[in-house]
């Protein structure tokens, strides 16, 4: 039985962390799966909320792991945010990972009029959070941008808090609602599809985050597939509001399902 049954399927959106790789290693069978999808002529984008590294560094890392991908295949929140900041004349105070600071080099950061939170990891210290809070609380109309709003991800130490947790902290402290750039924001999926030249009903998203990947994609009309790798937990399959179109063991299985569905 094929749960997806969609002969029009033409575009595949893949989450990176927890689907292609876990920490520094490729997830078993995923490299081969991407290759098969490519060979079948499907359009592929790697849609990630990854903000610990630049797109270039991520592309290099994936190439090293054997993935046939390049920088342009990767859709991440930073470029989207940067063009937004430029359009709106915003000068950010950044609380992000030091690895992504180069992406913001051309952006005026003096006298900030908004705060940007990314997955800052070790940079999430009390003093850094206080600093961001101090800026928000002293603004007449505070603006807080969050690069994704993930709850947690899996790292070599185990599950770690993602940016969404710290966004929730600052939202509560400064009584402000964050503006999200990245998954599950609909605009993020839509602009990716537009760039691919694919309609929502022709596309499938494969991810390990039931809310951000699967729910976000489904809300935009895409098919959403949950994999049991990465940060997946059995309780995800009983999520009160998100019901994946399919739940599979890993990307290898997802790829088979996708290729089958087009026959």
């Amino acid at each position, binding site marked *: 039985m094929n749960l997806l049954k969609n002969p029009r399927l033409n575009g595949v959106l893949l989450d990176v962390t927890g689907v292609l790789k876990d920490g520094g290693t490729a997830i078993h069978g995923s490299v081969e799966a991407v290759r098969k999808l490519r060979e079948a002529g499907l359009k592929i984008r790697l849609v990630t909320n990854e903000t610990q590294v630049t797109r270039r560094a991520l592309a290099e890392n994936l190439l090293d792991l054997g993935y046939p991908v390049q920088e342009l295949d990767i859709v991440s929140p930073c470029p989207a945010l940067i063009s937004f900041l430029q359009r709106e004349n915003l000068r950010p105070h950044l609380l992000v990972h030091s690895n992504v600071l180069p992406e913001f080099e051309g952006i005026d950061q003096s006298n900030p009029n908004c705060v940007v939170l990314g997955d800052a990891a070790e940079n999430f210290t009390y003093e850094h959070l206080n600093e961001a809070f101090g800026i928000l609380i002293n603004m007449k109309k505070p603006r807080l941008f969050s690069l994704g709003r993930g*709850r947690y991800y899996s790292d070599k130490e185990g599950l770690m808090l993602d940016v969404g947790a710290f966004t929730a902290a600052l939202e509560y402290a400064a009584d402000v609602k964050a503006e999200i750039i990245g998954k599950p924001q609909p605009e993020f999926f839509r602009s990716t599809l537009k760039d691919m030249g694919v309609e929502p009903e022709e596309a499938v998203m494969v991810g390990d985050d039931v809310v951000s990947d699967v729910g976000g994609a489904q809300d935009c009309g895409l098919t959403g597939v949950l994999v049991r790798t990465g940060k997946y937990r059995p309780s995800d399959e009983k999520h009160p509001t998100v019901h994946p179109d399919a739940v599979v063991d890993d990307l290898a299985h997802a790829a088979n399902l996708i290729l089958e569905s087009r026959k």
Partner: protein
Amino acid sequence: MASRKVPIKAVLIDLSGTLHVENTAIPGAVDSLKKLRGTGIPIKFVTNTTKESRRCLFERLIGLGLELRKDEIWSSLWAAQDLLRSRNLKPMLMVDDAALEDFSGLTDYGEEEQNAVVIGLAPSMFNFSQLSKAFRLLLTGAGVPLIAIHCGRYYKRCDGLALGPGPFVRALEYASGCHSEVVGKPSPTFFRSALGDVDPAYAVMIGDDVKDDIGGAQAMGMRGFLVQTGKYRTGDESRISPGPAAVCPSFSEAVDILLKEYAQSEGDS
């Protein structure tokens, strides 16, 4: 003011902003407390502190000339250790070092044994690595409670405002999907544990925080007397509905009302 004929069986009194501001007693507070003591009505001093142990609070208040016993102090920290002991929990404690003495016997559980997360105010632990550790503990199984000393958004530090425990409680709630148990004001559990057997209808709360002191106490059936000292700002009394049972310029006037009611109820009986 219309006086009531309900006998008063307990008075809860907030500390900071009501009896003192930092190291100075509110004018008249020392004498008024003495007068209130004359009635013999049981008193509890209730405070949301994340830092100071019971002994530390006690010594400060004695130093200001206030008359009290250590066991009359019911702080959010004290309520937390009370809750941990009564439920036999082995906590991961994210509290200030100065507060640890209230948790004696509860501080040394290894990571494998811990089955509760307690959030006080611990700037040195409010970071990515420690918070992630707390998060993983919350996920280990059903029934690992997230206990918040209180949910204050921020507090005043000498160099400006600084994040309180609340934001970090929210962070862990968001990531784990669990709901915290708040042990400090305005949680009904806090007032109930401070009151012991006393019916809230016979109890009065005096404080300067219209939401946490007055709103919290009134929501569980007590009467709340708002004092216009400490953090009080003009118009605070209209920020809750129904409004405070009484609004008094300071602690002394609040005590005067209680003494009048007391005399009346004594006269009636």
